[in-house]
């Protein structure tokens, strides 16, 4: 029970003023612009968009500035903003096969059609702090270019395994997926809702869940079949037009995680997939999502559900950092009456347990 408490308006208002001052920092230094955040802290922007579940880089940049870089707070701001907007409709499913690839790698095939395209990645950097970046006016030379060539097209790796009959296919379906922003989650949720939940789940939580499957909590021996990152076209069909139109491009990252599957009574031994698709260039998130997606398919594939990452209710109920932080941070709200009653209970229990001759003050002094 929470009790409304009046008063403190002046203190709150002064606290907000101090917050604004702290946010600005030293006024002798130039103020950071949202365009700078959008251009130079792109991966923070991507994370806020993915977990805010709303693609809009400039809003995400503003949220990061307002939240002083606290990304969960920024995600909260973006989620709150999106509730003020009407929904015009839904897009056609993104065709990631038609992605304009900036990066595409496979850990299962070295020489695959389209090749290994490294793209702008942290991989292969030495993780040494680069003090040149601490100096102002650091302008990198333009990235080298090369002729894409005739063989630049990147077919899906999962398709190559499927052609051999070694990959469990996805059921072709146009079923209308559930939407957890409209209908509260209930269990069993099914894969479409799981994927929606994971796509906006807290990255740290996803990473830990995925890591737990690698360490043996849930049978898993995954390979990155394919990781691709780049631009896809967003198409919608406005009812007043009746035909699909392109409304822009967004950057997404997709991960196809390939796992061995021993087979069941109905299925031969083959590979199965875990799937990750996320807004932005959030590669760790896409990989984590794919591992957790695969783990959550345990029941459907007839595997024993023994680990947390395989437990749909556990994962989906605890993945959302806005729900989690809300419930956690509400503990800061006044619980005066709650605590008063607990205090009385504890005092009563003590009184019942203590020898009646010893006054409480004496007892405390004696401890």
């Amino acid at each position, binding site marked *: 029970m929470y009790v409304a408490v009046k008063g403190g308006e002046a203190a709150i208002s002064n606290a907000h003023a101090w917050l604004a001052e702290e946010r600005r920092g030293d006024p002798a230094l130039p103020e950071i612009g949202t365009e700078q955040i959008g251009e130079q802290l792109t991966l923070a922007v991507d994370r806020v968009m993915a977990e805010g579940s709303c693609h809009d880089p400039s809003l995400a940049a503003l949220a990061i500035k307002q939240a002083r870089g606290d990304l969960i707070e920024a995600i909260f701001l973006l989620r709150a903003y999106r509730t003020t907007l*009407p929904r015009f409709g839904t897009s056609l499913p993104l065709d990631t096969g038609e992605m304009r690839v900036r990066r595409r790698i496979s850990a299962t095939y070295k020489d695959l059609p389209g090749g290994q395209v490294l793209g702008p990645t942290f991989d292969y950097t030495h993780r040494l702090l680069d003090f040149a970046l601490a100096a102002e006016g650091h302008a990198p030379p333009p990235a080298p270019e090369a002729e894409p060539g005739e063989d630049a097209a990147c077919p899906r790796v999962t398709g190559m395994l499927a052609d051999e009959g070694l990959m469990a296919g996805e059921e072709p379906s146009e079923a209308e997926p559930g939407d957890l922003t409209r209908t509260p989650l209930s269990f069993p949720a099914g894969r479409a809702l799981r994927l929606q939940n994971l796509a906006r789940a807290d990255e740290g939580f996803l990473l830990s869940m995925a890591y737990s499957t690698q360490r043996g909590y849930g049978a898993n021996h995954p390979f990155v079949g394919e990781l691709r990152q780049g631009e896809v076209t967003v198409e919608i069909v406005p009812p*007043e037009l009746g*035909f699909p139109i392109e409304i822009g491009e967004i950057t997404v990252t997709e991960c196809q995680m390939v796992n061995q599957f021993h087979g069941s009574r109905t299925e031969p031994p083959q590979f199965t997939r875990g799937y990750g698709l996320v807004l932005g260039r959030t590669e760790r998130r896409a990989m984590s999502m794919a591992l957790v997606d695969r783990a959550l398919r345990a029941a459907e594939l007839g595997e024993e559900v023994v680990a947390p990452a395989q437990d749909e209710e556990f994962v989906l109920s605890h993945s959302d950092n806005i729900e989690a932080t809300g419930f956690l941070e509400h503990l800061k709200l006044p619980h005066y009456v709650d605590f008063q009653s607990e205090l009385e209970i504890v005092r009563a229990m003590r009184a019942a347990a203590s020898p009646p001759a010893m006054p409480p003050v004496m007892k405390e002094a004696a401890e």
Partner: protein
Amino acid sequence: MSARDRLRPPVAATAGTLLPGFADPVLDAQSAFRAVLEAMARPGRVQRLPRPPAPPAPILPAAGAVLLALVDSATPVLTDAGAEAEAWLRFHAGCPLADGPAEADFLLATGTPPPLAALRAGTDEDPQLSATLILQVQALEEGSGWRLTGPGIEREHRLRVAGAPPGFIAERTANAALFPRGVDVILCAGDRVAALPRTTRIEEG
């Protein structure tokens, strides 16, 4: 499936999309919502929509305002108002059109409405999943006519409804017996609305 396979007949072919919706979509929708809220909270009291749109006939301005304020892409609408009115609604509210009374979240009746018993009444667990009937009538006047009692009414409200469908009170009484399930009704005349939530009891005046 490629995008090309998704071609559907457009709804833009009629004049319905040529008429604007609310002049100010945000403020006008908010004031329409406020009017509906007042009407629902005080059953039988007539509210005036301050800035209704000019929808295509036969949709009345009040009904147009109520629909634009309440419906969206998640609420299928069923109406007898014709193709032009349907196109206008779909264009401005983005709502799907329901196949039948049982699929509709909102119904706009410009003539005789379907029987209330055919509309969604919700479930005992989720009574909010019921339909709302927006019923166009000729006139709404306070002070005489039907005798309304129930929540939101201190003693009784009197509401004169000109042009209500025959047998409406009997149907409505049967529907009210389903509480907490049941259909809410919003009456519209010109730029005026009055509501009959499922909790309101109606007697012939």
